[in-house]
Each structure stands twice: as structure tokens, then as C-alpha cells.
């Protein structure tokens, strides 16, 4: 089906992004392509469909065959009907205003007879359960719905090879599960071949049968059954900063303590159950990450106080009756389903979106009475799109900027800048334009520029989206430092495993208001109706529960 022999891909003016990639993917296989950020996964996905080098300039050497032929040599239509591609960015998948027009566009391209288009369109939407939205404007749909429409487009084409570049990113836990299950149905079909790229592996592990691991230079370092390669290449994966599924991560820890040797790490909950049964329960429980303990209540006055706040777009109420406070030195996660209003709330807090009702106090002052630039003195905000915040032509100047404005002396600026460059691993690219950095580097820079000043509240909108494990760990180390220095940190996220281990307090937004405000442990252990909030238990918590059941 896909046959790659010594494929090397280099973009102009750059070192090769993929080096000597060789693999043979057979019909019906479900392959996970894994590697750190920038290892060339998306590049390979484009090459499998022939878009690269047909339309993306790059040097490709070696031999790449899909269905026995070089995809770049085929006609665009033929290549697209054999192998379809789901792109990394849900915002740029579509080119028409409504769902119906988008599907029609796809089918017209493939020259499906006009009379059959309607039928195939409806079938594809039924597959994802999106038929009621057939005439909706795509830009009014939530992130999860958009992703389902993207899957519908692939289903309408019905190709033999499905290439999925981070199909689950930006989805809330419930939607992740739904979309992953949809893809699982395709994976179960012996005639369909899946190549999936993901950072967060828990869901896809249910149906992935083989893993191919790329290292930072885009070379294949391991290829085989996921459980086996996670085991045999554990050290390398750790060094490369690749996320493992939670059971594998815990299994690795467990093995380190005991002398037992195995052939493979568990990758799904089911496998974890049998794996853990071979170990003493205390050891097993100790190998699982602990939820962070909520600190003792702060004695200081709150930096932020929200009282009965309500917000709406036109007639559509996003939330109402929202009240909570943030205290210095607190690490809080804001969770909720796609479209629950997390980003809106973040904007309301910073006085960006006007309040419909209620008040927000920053350091005791009503935010409605402050000018935007005065509010900015109190808030550091990291947006979903880091590029929006960059002002200067080099990384170094970008970091210096805040300190210069604050009027620091040159000596301090130089010293502090160098510290930050090292801390955020940005030293080697200090002279580059911020826009030219990789996604992970941009994210780190955007945080670095926010922690340079003495704003007392730090708000981050999905800070770990698209980051590999090493970058995410580095990021949280810095956030933790900020917290210790007395800042209140609030981050918006869909990643429950991260919430479980990094946050001390959870705010959950559901059914138009704050549905939960309290400690992490009580949130996941308690009687909270998580389904209603649109989240799931973190995998580690499920593993803990399984363990409890197993030994009971």
C-alpha cells in the first residue's frame, strides 16, 4: 500500500526534515506516527498524498510509492481519491461557507456524478451524526463539530488510505472520545489503512496496531507494536520528549522499581489491568502520579474577584451568575466542553469583553472603570495564537522589550534576558524572527515575555496544545516558579491528565455557569457529573480505579 524506501525530504534553505525514512505499510494496518515537535510527521503526511513536492517546494529523494506509484506523479484527483488527509489545523481545513457546500466541493472535485452527490453527502454526515447541521455555516460550529465535519469529508471520499494529522487536538475529552471512536470504526475495516499522527495517545491506542517513531532529525528510530517499542526505546523516547500513553508511562515507572522484565509496556487500560496484576498493589499505586494537593487557604486578599458575572453574544447567553476569586500563589485550571465559554470568560476577566451583568474586581478595583492599558498592568495573558503578541524582529529583543518599558537598567536586562533564554531553551535562536520559530518555540517565547514583568495574574489559553512532553514540562516548571513568586496562574485546558497532576484547584464551566470550584481530588473522586461538564476522568484516575477493583 505505502512503500517508502530511503525517503529524505528537505525544505529549501534547511537541513532535511525527514531522513532516510523506510517503511512498508500494508493494507488494513493502523499505524501511529510518533515523534517530537518538528520531527517531520506533517511533512511525511503531505508526501504520502503527493502534495509535497507537487505544491510544496521540497527536495525529495529515495522512493515513495502509494498503490505502487509515486503519489506526486499521479493526477491530483487520483491521489486525493486514494488517500485522504485530515489536516492539523481545524481552522484551515475548509474552503466553503457551509457544510453542504464544503461536501459538494469535495465530491465535485472527484467528479462524482451530480445525482450521487446528495446521497454520499448524507451518508457521510450520518456516519458522524452531523446530518442536522448540513446547512450550518462552518464558522459557527464548535471545535469538536468542525473536526467531525472534517471526518465527514473524508468519509464522503471514502478512500482506502486515511492520513490523520492530529485529528483530536483541540477537542474536549468527550468529543475526543467520540471522534476517536468514529475513527476506530474505520480502523476496524480490514480494507482501510490508517496513518495517524497524535501527541496525546490515550484514545488512539485502542485501535493502533503499529508505531513508527521518528527522532528529532526525522529518522526512524523504532518500528513495531506500540507496547514493545515503548518498552525497548523508553530512554530514547524520554530524551526526545515524546508523550507516552498514561498506562505506558506508569508501567515504565513500575518496572524501574521491580526487577521484573517484560517484552512490552501496557498501552491501553485493559492491558494495564493485566500488567499491574503482576505487581504488589502498593507499588502499583505509588507508580501512578498523585493529584496535586490544594494548598492551605491563602491569607492574602484575592487579586481577582468575580461577582455574579454574566456574558452574552447578542441574545445568546454564554454564562451567567459566575462568582469566584483568585488568590496569589494559586494554580488553577479552567475546564469545560468545547464552546462552554472558557475563552469568553478569560476575555471577560481581562475587561476585553464587556460584562452583561455583575462585576470584576482586580486588586479591589472595578475593572469597568479601568482603561485597557491600565488593566494590562495586572494581567499577563498568553493567547492561543502566540504570534499575535510578538512585536519585535528578534527573539532577544522580544524578551528585552518588557524590561525596557519597565525601565530596568541595561545590566539587569542583559542578565535577566540571558537567564530566560537558557531557561526556555531559546538561546540558539536568539537572533531569529519570532514568526520563524516552531510551534513549541513560539509557545515558550510567548510565556517568556509574559513572565518578565510583575503582573500579578497570568492567564493562559490552552498553553500545551501541540506541545511535546519536554516542552510542556518546561512550560509548567516556569509556571510553577511564577506561582511560587506569588502570581495567580489560571490556565484553560482540555487535558485532564495535566489538570490532575499540575493544578491545585479546578474551575469547571458548564450549563452556563460555574459548575464546580474546588480541589482536584474532590472533582475527580466526588460525585461530580463529569459527563455534564464535558470532561472525562483522567486516564491515571481510571487506572487507579481499575487497580482498586482488581484487588478488591
Amino acid at each position: 500500500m505505502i512503500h517508502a524506501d530511503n525517503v529524505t525530504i528537505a525544505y529549501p534553505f534547511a537541513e532535511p526534515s525527514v531522513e532516510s525514512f523506510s517503511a512498508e505499510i500494508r493494507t488494513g494496518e493502523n499505524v501511529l506516527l510518533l515523534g517530537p515537535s518538528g520531527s517531520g510527521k506533517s511533512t511525511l503526511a503531505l508526501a504520502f498524498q503527493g502534495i509535497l513536492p507537487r505544491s510544496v517546494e521540497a527536495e525529495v529523494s529515495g522512493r515513495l510509492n502509494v498503490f505502487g506509484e509515486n503519489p506526486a506523479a499521479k493526477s491530483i484527483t487520483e491521489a486525493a481519491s486514494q488517500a485522504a488527509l485530515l489536516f492539523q489545523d481545524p481552522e484551515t481545513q475548509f474552503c466553503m461557507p457551509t457544510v453542504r457546500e464544503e461536501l459538494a466541493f469535495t465530491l465535485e472535485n472527484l467528479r462524482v456524478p451530480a445525482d450521487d452527490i446528495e446521497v454520499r453527502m448524507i451518508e457521510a454526515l450520518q456516519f458522524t451524526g452531523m446530518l442536522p447541521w448540513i446547512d450550518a455555516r462552518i464558522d459557527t460550529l464548535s471545535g469538536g463539530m468542525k473536526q467531525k465535519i472534517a471526518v465527514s469529508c473524508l468519509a464522503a471520499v471514502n478512500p482506502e488510505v486515511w492520513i490523520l494529522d492530529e485529528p483530536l487536538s483541540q477537542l474536549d475529552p468527550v468529543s475526543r472520545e467520540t471522534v476517536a471512536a468514529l475513527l476506530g470504526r474505520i480502523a476496524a475495516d480490514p480494507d482501510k489503512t490508517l496513518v495517524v499522527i497524535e501527541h496525546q495517545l490515550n484514545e488512539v491506542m485502542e485501535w493502533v496496531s503499529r508505531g513508527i517513531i521518528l527522532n528529532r532529525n526525522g529518522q526512524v528510530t523504532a518500528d513495531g507494536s506500540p507496547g514493545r517499542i515503548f518498552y525497548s526505546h523508553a530512554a530514547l523516547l524520554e530524551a526526545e520528549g515524546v508523550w507516552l500513553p498514561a498506562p505506558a508511562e506508569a508501567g515504565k515507572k513500575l518496572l524501574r522499581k521491580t526487577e521484573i522484565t517484560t517484552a512490552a509496556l501496557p498501552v491501553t487500560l485493559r492491558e494495564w489491568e493485566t500488567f499491574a496484576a503482576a505487581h504488589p498493589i502498593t507499588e502499583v499505586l505509588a507508580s501512578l502520579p498523585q493529584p496535586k494537593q490544594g494548598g492551605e487557604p491563602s491569607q492574602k486578599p484575592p487579586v481577582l474577584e468575580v461577582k455574579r458575572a454574566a456574558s452574552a453574544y447578542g441574545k445568546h447567553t454564554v454564562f451567567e451568575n459566575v462568582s469566584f476569586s483568585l488568590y496569589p500563589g494559586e494554580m488553577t485550571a479552567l475546564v469545560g466542553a468545547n464552546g462552554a465559554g472558557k475563552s469568553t470568560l478569560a476575555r471577560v476577566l481581562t475587561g476585553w469583553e464587556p460584562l452583561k451583568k455583575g462585576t470584576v474586581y482586580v486588586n479591589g478595583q472595578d475593572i469597568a472603570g479601568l482603561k485597557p492599558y491600565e488593566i494590562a498592568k495586572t494581567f499577563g495573558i498568553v493567547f492561543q495564537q502566540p504570534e499575535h503578541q510578538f512585536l519585535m524582529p528578534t527573539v532577544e529583543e522580544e524578551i528585552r522589550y518588557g524590561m525596557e518599558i519597565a525601565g530596568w537598567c541595561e545590566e539587569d536586562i542583559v542578565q535577566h534576558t540571558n537567564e530566560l533564554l537558557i531557561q526556555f531553551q531559546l538561546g540558539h535562536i536568539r537572533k531569529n524572527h519570532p514568526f520563524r520559530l516552531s510551534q513549541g518555540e513560539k509557545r515558550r517565547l510567548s510565556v517568556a515575555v509574559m513572565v518578565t514583568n510583575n503582573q500579578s495574574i497570568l492567564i493562559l489559553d490552552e498553553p500545551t496544545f501541540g506541545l511535546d512532553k519536554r516542552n510542556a514540562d518546561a512550560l509548567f516548571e516556569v509556571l510553577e516558579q511564577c506561582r511560587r513568586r506569588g502570581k495567580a496562574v489560571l490556565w484553560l485546558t482540555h487535558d485532564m491528565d495535566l489538570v490532575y497532576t499540575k493544578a491545585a484547584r479546578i474551575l469547571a464551566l458548564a450549563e452556563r455557569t460555574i459548575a464546580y470550584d474546588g480541589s482536584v481530588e474532590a472533582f475527580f473522586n466526588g460525585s461530580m457529573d463529569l459527563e455534564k461538564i464535558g470532561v472525562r476522568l483522567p486516564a491515571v484516575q481510571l487506572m487507579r480505579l481499575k487497580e482498586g477493583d482488581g484487588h478488591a
Partner: protein
Amino acid sequence: MANKRLNLRDIVVISFISAVLGVLYLLWVLLGQMVTGIFGPVGGGLMAGFWILAPVICAYIVQKPGAALLAELIAAGTEVMAGSVSAGAVLLLGFTQGLAAEIIFAVFFYRVFRLPVLMLAGMAGTFAAFLTQYMLYGFSQYAGSIVVFMLVTMIISGALLAGWAGKSFADALVKTGVLDRFALGRQYREGQQRNAV
């Protein structure tokens, strides 16, 4: 350059840039109408160069035949789709302005995209706008002096607001790296590498 034909990517990128500019054109029209209403067509003339930004910027970035004309047509099309209340005039002007800028680039065989050529393209664009408006709005009924004065202000505006400002904007854009895969970006990268050596 081996391939001088516009490909799908060029067209889509030109569409996006021109669509953004088209929205700005619309805002500029409101401003322009106010200025024209108060100071007459001469005051408006000084603003005319802004409407030639799309062909100058896109041709400078892509450096292929047809880019200038296409850019201006799409900018005009965007104005119409976004609900411009003067759709007809906008489409006609879009065509003549884009064509005039295109002719200038063609005269230089699409090889030279230096500041003087870009300014010339801007001036050609405003000149075309002048001719079109002359026909549409009956300028023949006005005193020759004021018409000539208007022409002069429009041409100056074309050189500065379109040629010079357009170039400096594209030059700022190229530093961000998003144009690396277009002619302008490649030239910038090559220049950088030469400096580094």
C-alpha cells in the same frame, strides 16, 4: 524563475491578501467619501493611491504575470461580496486599475520589481482610476485647471501610497518568514545568506 504561471497556491494567497485589503479599501472609501464631500475630488485625489495597494503588494511578492490584475479584481470582488454600496464602480475601477499596474510590470518583462517600478505601477493605477472616473462622473464638465490638479494629486498619491508604502509593507512582511516560498521571500533569504557568508 522556471515557472512563471500562477499556481493554485499563488492564487489563494493573492486572494487572501487582496481580501484583507479589499476590506480596508471599503473603510478607505468611507473616509474618501467624507474627504471628497468636504474638500472635493482634489482632496479625494490624494487618497487614491491606497486603492492600488493590492496589485503592487501582490505583484511584488509573487512576481508573476497576472498577479497585479488578479489582485485588484479580487480586492474589488471582496468589496462587492462584503456589501459595498458602489459595486458597479468598484468592479470597473478594479479592472482598469489592476490592468494599468499589470501593464507596467509587463513592460519590464516581470523581471524588475524595484521601488521605481513599483511607484510607476502605482502611478499607472491611479492614472487609470482617473480616466475611469473622468468617464463615469463626467469630469469633462469641470474647469480644466481643477481636473489637471486632480490628476496630479492622484498620481502623486499613487507613487507614495501605493508604490512606496506598499513596498515597505511587503518588506516588513517578508522578515516574518511567511513569504519564504514566494519570489520575494526567496530573494530575501538569498540576500541574508550572502550577508552571512
